[in-house]
């Protein structure tokens, strides 16, 4: 791997003085009940004490097996009698399709894209995730703010800015990180579509003219961001290179504990058995 390590390091977290137009803010926010439910600030017009469901996040890079695991978990939870709602990136009614178009045209700059993703995220929070959590539903989130923060940070947007953007995101009850090596992820992703997409390979970042190295370097940078966030936000790290059934078992054990489900026994129905390898 010749110049894989030469890439620019992601900007360090600095304790800088705020920009002039920012009015003085308290050094540490006063003890705020909102912090229990949100990362920083309460969401306008929402009472978090109404939450009766659980928010379970599965994070991991492209090719880490998130979607497969979510499909299986949904079946397991439904067989246990729980109502399940899923969420994921670019699925909002408000801007989901607009982001698809922006990505296809690839005429968009990093900050605009980051803000469109934030719009997509909060639209889903307000119209899909919160209503579900209020009615006692289990929400399985295929990626969450961590992917979005990581993608912004590796593109040179300040970490504080990115996490400030998501200050009103709900704190998940559980956050799993399916950790895989970029090399493994490359093979899995390639097999899916017989190609690697422009964005998966981070081609907008001009890391390498070789598609393979561009993918590896980009995903390595994202992975480093995940390592930083994993410590800070108590991710439950799982080996995403283990078999589907092994990963699924570990997920079920931890979720069962959270939801008070006694048995974690599960074999997929015939409709989903093709995923079980």
């Amino acid at each position: 791997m010749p110049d894989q390590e030469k890439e620019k390091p992601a900007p360090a977290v600095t304790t800088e003085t705020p920009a002039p137009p920012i009015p003085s803010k308290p050094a540490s926010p006063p003890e705020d009940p909102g912090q229990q439910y949100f990362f920083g600030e309460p969401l306008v017009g929402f009472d978090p004490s109404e939450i009766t469901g659980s928010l379970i996040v599965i994070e991991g890079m492209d090719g880490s097996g998130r979607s497969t695991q979510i499909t299986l978990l949904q079946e397991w939870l439904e067989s246990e009698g729980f109502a399940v709602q899923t969420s994921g990136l670019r699925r909002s009614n408000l801007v989901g399709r607009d982001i698809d178009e922006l990505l296809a045209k690839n005429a968009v700059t990093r900050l605009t894209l980051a803000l469109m993703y934030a719009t997509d995220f909060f639209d889903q929070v307000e119209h899909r995730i919160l209503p579900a959590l209020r009615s006692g539903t289990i929400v399985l989130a295929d990626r969450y703010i961590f992917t979005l923060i990581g993608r912004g940070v590796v593109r040179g947007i300040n970490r504080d800015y990115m996490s400030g953007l998501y200050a009103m995101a709900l704190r998940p009850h559980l956050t799993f990180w399916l950790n895989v090596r970029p090399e493994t992820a490359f093979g899995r992703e390639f097999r899916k579509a017989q190609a690697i997409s422009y964005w998966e390979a981070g081609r907008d970042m001009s890391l390498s003219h070789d598609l393979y190295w561009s993918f590896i370097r980009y995903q390595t940078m994202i992975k480093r961001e995940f390592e930083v966030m994993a410590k800070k936000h108590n991710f439950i790290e799982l080996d995403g290179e283990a078999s589907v059934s092994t990963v699924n078992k570990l997920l079920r054990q931890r979720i069962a504990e959270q939801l008070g489900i006694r048995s974690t026994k599960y074999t997929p129905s015939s409709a989903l058995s093709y995923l079980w390898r």
Partner: protein
Amino acid sequence: METQDLVLKPARTEPAKSTLPQPGRPVPSRAYPGALIVVEGTDGSGKSTQLYLLKRWLEIGGYRLHFTEWNSSPLVKSATRRGKQRRLLTPTTFSLLHAADFADRCERQIMPLLQGDYLVLADRYIYTAFARDTARGCSPRWLRNLYRFAPVPDITFYFRAPLDVAVNRILSGRPKLKYYEAGMDLGMSYDRAESFRLFQARILEEYDKMVETDNFVVLDGTMPVNKLQKQMRDIVASKIDLKRFAPRAEAAE
């Protein structure tokens, strides 16, 4: 080699570090050669008319300038329209969508032009978002972070008109107020005109708070148009070295 002769020497050398504000980093004030003039104020305060006249004055003088308007990026337009038509927007997504729109104009127009030695005129700027979105209940701290990438204007004109004057100007000229424009999403009143009035009062209050903190140049929106314009032009001429933006010698040929 022949090709070397074709390489033009740039008029200015590229600085080692970007001179533009980066999200979340201190803004290097005036680190770029261009200048930014902004107008702010409630609906009906007369700001757009005044900026139009200022623009005409500068255009006729041949100055290099670019005019940009709030909420006008084609990239984000369809999403904003859909969100408004179907009333999908909440205070948070309303705010984020406008920020995305602004970021697009900022990254693709405002910033490159400021670096390229242009005079940029903006009809509404980040202070519109601060006033409106705070009036909608968004956290001011969150909002200030959201727009940290925006260059600080060289002049921010704040057109101040008493609530009744501004509201009546809008109500008499525009028979039907739009849902979000009237602040109907806040549920303050079922009557659109009344809701609009209450919403504008809140916005006015937020603008007034920023006069000191954000160095607004306050102008009286009730003055006769031509007198107000004279004031505006005098201030621009005194605060900005307009010669820098005058037509380049070769352009005159």
